[in-house]
């Protein structure tokens, strides 16, 4: 098995995203993650297929030197599903945006998650339609000003995390475009996860929605306003690693270690593998300023996958059935002979 480097995953196509676009960070993370994935799982490069819909982020397949399918708006998840079910030996990655996956493609998105198709979905969330030059998206905050909401939106946004978990998602993680290492790490875990993995990356659109995630993503404040969750580790965050999350009644609460008698022992330990979705839902829903925004792998649980189910059922029926070829089929059931 050859050891690949990121260079083998780079295509010869010129990357045409705007300078400073957050998508560059996701592409770099993927090109860095795939050699590790390949090594960890013993894959060949030719088994990767990268699928996308329409939007800025959906250009990604052209920049990867793998099999790729740049499809139509919203439909990437359906195409990925078809590829994976048709040939479960392939490793399917998908790039899609918040408008692509959650508006026009919302139906395919939730159903792929519900079925637990073993695909890896990277959801670029910049809270705006970039390629059509600046209209609000289903993740734009309530009141967001855009070209189609000049007086502010009057609709509530989706939180992709709660949507994924509500659809019985088995893997959900979140990262920032600038957290290259974390994003790559999540990608490796997503690849290892047998089932539908959704990785939301909060990306910045420098042209139409610059600073959408600034409140939490700026270097100076990031440590205090985000928390990187790691399975088995305490939910501690902050520049001084002195803040933590505790369970308070039916909800979560932020505490400071050393204040009001709080010690590290009181802080929750993250269990990404817990079947119980309740706490994952609360973690995915945490919003600044009340909470830090959760990054890292929020949920990673095992369940049967759709593509395995389809393949196994075919094998099972084949083993039992008397009909092994079309000639058998044509002669099955009620027939009669004309002599």
């Amino acid at each position, binding site marked *: 098995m050859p050891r690949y480097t990121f260079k083998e995953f780079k*295509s010869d*196509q010129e990357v045409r995203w705007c300078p400073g676009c957050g998508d560059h960070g996701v592409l770099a993370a993927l090109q860095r993650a795939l050699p590790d994935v390949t090594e960890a799982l013993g894959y*060949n*490069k*030719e*088994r*990767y*297929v990268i*699928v996308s819909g*329409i939007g800025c982020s959906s250009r990604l*397949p*052209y920049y990867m*030197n*793998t*099999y*790729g*399918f*740049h*499809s*139509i708006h919203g*439909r990437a998840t*359906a*195409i*990925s*599903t*078809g*590829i*994976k*079910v*048709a*040939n479960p*030996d*392939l490793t399917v990655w998908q790039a899609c945006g918040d408008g692509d996956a959650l508006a026009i493609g919302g*139906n*395919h998105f939730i*159903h792929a998650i519900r079925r637990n198709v073993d695909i890896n979905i990277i959801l670029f969330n910049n809270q705006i339609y970039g390629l059509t030059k600046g209209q609000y998206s289903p993740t734009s905050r309530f009141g967001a000003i855009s070209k189609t909401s000049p007086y502010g939106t009057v609709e509530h946004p989706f939180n992709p995390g709660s949507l994924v978990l509500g659809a019985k998602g088995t893997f959900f993680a979140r990262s920032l475009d600038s957290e290259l290492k974390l994003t790559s790490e999540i990608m490796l875990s997503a690849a290892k996860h047998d089932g539908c993995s959704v990785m939301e990356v909060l990306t910045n659109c420098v042209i139409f929605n610059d600073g959408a995630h600034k409140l939490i993503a700026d270097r100076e404040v990031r440590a205090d306003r985000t928390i990187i969750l790691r399975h088995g580790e305490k939910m501690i965050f902050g520049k001084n690693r002195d803040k933590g999350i505790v369970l308070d009644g039916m909800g979560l609460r932020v505490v400071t270690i050393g204040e009001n008698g709080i010690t590290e022992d009181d802080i929750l330990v993250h269990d990404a593998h817990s079947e119980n979705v309740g706490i994952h839902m609360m973690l995915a829903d945490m919003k600044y300023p009340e909470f830090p925004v959760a990054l890292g792998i929020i949920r990673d649980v095992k369940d049967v996958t759709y593509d395995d189910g*389809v393949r196994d*059922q*075919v094998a099972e*029926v*084949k083993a*039992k*059935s008397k*009909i*092994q*070829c*079309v*000639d058998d*089929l*044509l*002669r099955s*059931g*009620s*027939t*009669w*002979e*004309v*002599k």
Partner: protein
Amino acid sequence: MQHKVIDTKDVVIRFAGDSGDGMQLTGSLFADMSAIFGNELSTFPDYPAEIRAPHGTVSGVSGFQVHIGSEHITTPGDFCDLLVAMNPAALKANAKWLKRTAMVLIDSDTFDDAGLARAGFEGDPIAEMHIEDRTIIVAPITTLTHESLKDSGLDKKTIEKCKNMFTLGMACYIYNRPMEYIFQYLERKFGKKKPQLVEPNKKVLKDGFNYAANIQAIANTYSIEPADQPKGLYRNINGNQATAWGLLAAAEKANLPLFCGSYPITPATGILEELAIHKSLGAKTLQAEDEIAGICTAIGAAFAGNLAVTTTSGPGLSLKSEAMGLAVMTELPLVIVDVQRAGPSTGIPTKTEQTDLNQALYGRNGECPMVVMAAHSPAGCFDAAFNAAKIAIEHMTPVLLLTEGFLGNGSEPWLIPSMKDYPKIVPPFVQPNVPYKPFHRDPETLARKWAVPGMAGCEHRVGGLEKNHDGVISSDPQNHEMMVRERMEKVQRVANYIPELQVNGPEKGKLLVVGWGGTYGHLLSAVQEARAEGIDVSFAHFDYILPLPKNTEEVLGNFDRILVCELNSGHFVNYLRGVLPQYKYEQFNKVQGQPFLVQEIVAAIKENL
């Protein structure tokens, strides 16, 4: 009264009742039994969209017409020799289909005041329908069924459900049908799961038969001799089943796994259901979250190297349009089956039409050609589906196969073919170790090569954006026009690989009747009937619409006038006017959600002489 058995060439029987009365089953059993007896036949289920419409109303009437004969049968028949009306509504809905010499068998128990009122009769239903001159057989079928089964131990509701067997028994007497097949059917159906139902059903059937023999109302019975059919093994098959099997056959011949992504829709669902059964042949079926996901999962499967299929009906085809364009652009093999129904919008979902042809030809954005073909009979759906898949794979193009509700639900006996008589299907897979450029084309077919993920060294990207031959995105004006022309030319060149158009009748003459799709049987019957009357008329039927068979111009040029008959407002005739404008076309159209009547076509032929 002297009882006579009259030999007859063919009869048409229409079973009609409430949509819960089991008329589809009764009709199917009568048809199957006749097929095994050796008759030729054709069936036409005519049922409402509602699963259980209001009891006893005209809107809830479900009908099943079967035409059996000792000679070649090509249609389910225009008018019937026997109408079985299980209630007043069934009589009201179907009296118009009675021949002048017809018999009507009615269940008098249902013709009470309430029943008549529900059907909207004000007085004597026979007089209101003006059928006093027909032979009306009045039988208290419900009462007799209860009487027959009073000692069976079955409850009242179950007994009630057996009255269709009583009726079937009566029909068996009238047409001298051997009932063994039905006995075997009952044993197969109930033997293991509900053995207590086998004997009561047999008893009711026999009691119905004996009742018909004993009453004086039935003067004559009829005998329809077995037809002189080619030797071999036969089965009954409906169009949806044949479509599914044709696709399975193509997958086997291409040595590819079959993938079908579909969303349930009347009247196409039967194909998805049929494929779902046959996992033993490797068929993967995905019941998608919507029509768009149906085609998009199929496109994904095609990219991954499967024989990919999506099945639908008109409204679903509308939803798939954008993705069909993607399949054209990515030049992937894909079979799209549209079982047409009456539109627009939801229309009349259970009724048949040919109104999707314009959509099939023109219903996409951009210059977006794909192969469009049609099936012409229920069993013919097998070959049509096989050929659609063969063309899709070998020419790397989506193929749209049009069938119709009339074909999908209609059935006919089929001489079972052998797969050794079918051609191989050769997917144009890329050769190993040859540098791969996705849109380099075969010089003969213009098909591109197929490189499937997993093949080392062939990594490439496809998508909806225009590309050049090397697969690189291009918005160069000349390149775009060249690619547009090549995609069109690729579809046109399929004409080099399909059969020529056949003419039934003289190859030269005054009038050529032209049709396509499921009207074949009616048009053929009508033309033969007209010729028997001495009329100079020939017939050409199109299985391939885009491209047209190569000799189309030559065939049409041999006739003074061309009469194009279709179940729409003139889609095909207008297409021909565009492609071959030098000929004079007349048109005969019907848009009623119903098949043609042979007599309508004969009349149209006479008008166009």
